[in-house]
């Protein structure tokens, strides 16, 4: 009965689905609906560009000490002034963006992916695995960050990679928990049953069918977490547990003297502080808007 399908086809052919909007129109729509989020996105993009083209946009080597210009106030030469070793604050902030973004993205990516896989698996398998996993996560969630950071830093030494590790450890359970709760809902949706009914293996279902579907909460989490990681890095550096001199890093710039002469040489403390605030601000604005856009429960009815 080949004619049969042909016949049906004839009917169906003219059904044209609603036209898809080109991306620039979508972008414009988003800009109109989420002006705040777009502002955040702009900040983030500027930061990324700044980090990538740091060599081009900075007048000085961020590591260059010039003892004749120690704590020079902002002027034509040094637009944000110099720090106590005579290094250009502006250049250090620009290069600091590299550190901040590296720490932020790396820890969000690594921690996020780990949390994603753990969270989805936990939800998917359920049962005893889930139960034990949950208890372990409880411990990690309740465990204070300082101890964790201090231990990691003391055991492995300071430095960017270890700071990332110290930030990841508490992030994984948080991420896993958020992912798990969405994944629990996803697990109940028929397309997962459909995948099972098609005879797919566990790994395929977890990675291909479940994980991509918790992307919305995951991405929201991740963007917010990039901001948080930057902030945590700054706080750790401020406590002396983070990135180390002479690496240009924002938290580090606020530490060690910046505070003591915050009044007579405010530029040393103000600009890095603003940089941190602005960066975290940007990521959070962006993440917030992303939440409004991606989270179907919050999507304004249209």
């Amino acid at each position: 009965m080949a004619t049969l399908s042909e016949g049906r086809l004839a009917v169906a052919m003219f059904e044209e689905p609603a036209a898809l909007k080109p991306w620039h129109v979508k972008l414009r729509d988003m800009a109109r609906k989420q002006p705040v989020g777009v502002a955040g996105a702009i900040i983030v993009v500027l930061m990324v560009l700044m980090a990538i083209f740091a060599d081009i946009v900075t007048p000085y080597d961020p590591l260059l000490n010039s003892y004749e210009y120690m704590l020079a106030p902002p002027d034509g030469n040094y637009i944000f002034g110099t720090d106590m070793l005579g290094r250009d604050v502006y250049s250090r902030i620009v290069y600091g963006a590299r550190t901040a973004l590296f720490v932020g993205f790396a820890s969000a990516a690594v921690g996020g992916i780990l949390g994603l896989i753990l969270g989805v698996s936990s939800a998917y398998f359920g049962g005893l695995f889930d139960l034990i996993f949950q208890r372990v996560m409880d411990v990690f969630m309740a465990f204070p960050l300082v101890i964790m950071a201090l231990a990691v830093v003391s055991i492995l030494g300071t430095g960017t990679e270890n700071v990332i590790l110290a930030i990841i450890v508490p992030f994984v359970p948080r991420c896993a928990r958020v992912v798990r709760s969405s994944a629990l809902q996803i697990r109940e949706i028929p397309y997962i049953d459909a995948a099972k009914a098609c005879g797919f293996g566990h790994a395929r279902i977890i990675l291909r069918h479940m994980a991509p579907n918790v992307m919305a909460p995951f991405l929201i989490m991740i963007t917010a977490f990039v901001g948080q990681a930057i902030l945590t890095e700054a706080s750790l550096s401020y406590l002396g547990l983070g990135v180390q001199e002479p690496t240009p890093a924002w938290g580090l710039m606020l530490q060690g003297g910046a505070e003591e002469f915050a009044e007579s040489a405010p530029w040393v403390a103000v600009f890095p502080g603003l940089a941190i605030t602005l960066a975290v601000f940007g990521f959070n604005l962006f993440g917030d808007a992303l939440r409004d856009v991606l989270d179907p429960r919050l999507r304004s009815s249209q």
Partner: protein
Amino acid sequence: MNDIATSHRGTVSDDVLISVDGLKMHFPVTEGVVLRRVVAHVKAVDGINFEIRRGETLGLVGESGCGKTTTGRCILQLERPTAGSILFEGRELSGLKGDELRAIRRRIQVIFQDPYSSLNPRLKIGEIIGEPIRVHGLIPDKAKRDQRVRELLAVCGLNPAFADRYPHEMSGGQRQRVGIARALGLEPDFIVCDEAVSALDVSIQAQVINLLEDLRDEFDLTYLFISHDLSVVRHICHRVAVMYLGKMVELAETDELFDNPKHPYTRALLEAVPIPDPVIEQARAHQIIKGEIPSPINPPSGCVFHPRCDIVVEGCPKAVPAFREVKPGHWVACTEV
């Protein structure tokens, strides 16, 4: 048997494809966080028997929560039944593992109720239909597989160009066709249609019903057609089983069941369905069944229907009525018929 295989419902052969015997599915109700104690059971399916013959469409009707979906899921091996056996071509399904299970899964497919949630929103239509074909190694070659996907789309009345679309770019009816195409891709023998048309608008619903019928004839399929819509069931099924609270209360050939219902519940059910004809409706005496469906955790004793039954007798709360054949091919679980 061939006498029921009226021309417009397709042909039914004599050999039994699926046979369900004494199927029970009790979901434990647990309490406690660490030591999960089982405090009760939801008796979702509580001992049902039926057979489906090759080429046949068996309707499974009943109100919400009576265990229709659970029955379907047990056959699909998505749940591990508490008791009972499910034979597919005479082979026991429960207990199958690994490759054997995968092989069986290819032959038993499912179409879900909700066209919105049964398609993975992250995958393109082409991937949704093509992936199972690839995983089961039916068509390893990518180009040929794509060709097959297009064919399947066409067979289901969809534009083959839809392969590059995402589910959200399609209407509900179109998505339901994609779900059907996915199931067909594995060249199954048997398809569980769990409320496959309930979520669709009347006009779209009719399109899909026709499609299902056409496919049944074209590919020699067997359906378990789960629905709460009695009119649709009457239209498409060869035989119909009525469930109530995890039990089967009546099973008969379609027209026999609808024209000559025996069980008081079946009768009440039919009574409750409004008929789209004001004249007939005006003439109908509306005997509305009283009460609500009891909880499957604590089903009533004896005949589970007795608290709502209008012909209840003394013995009803005491003994579980046997599911017996009152007429050839007409089974009822009631002592009073």
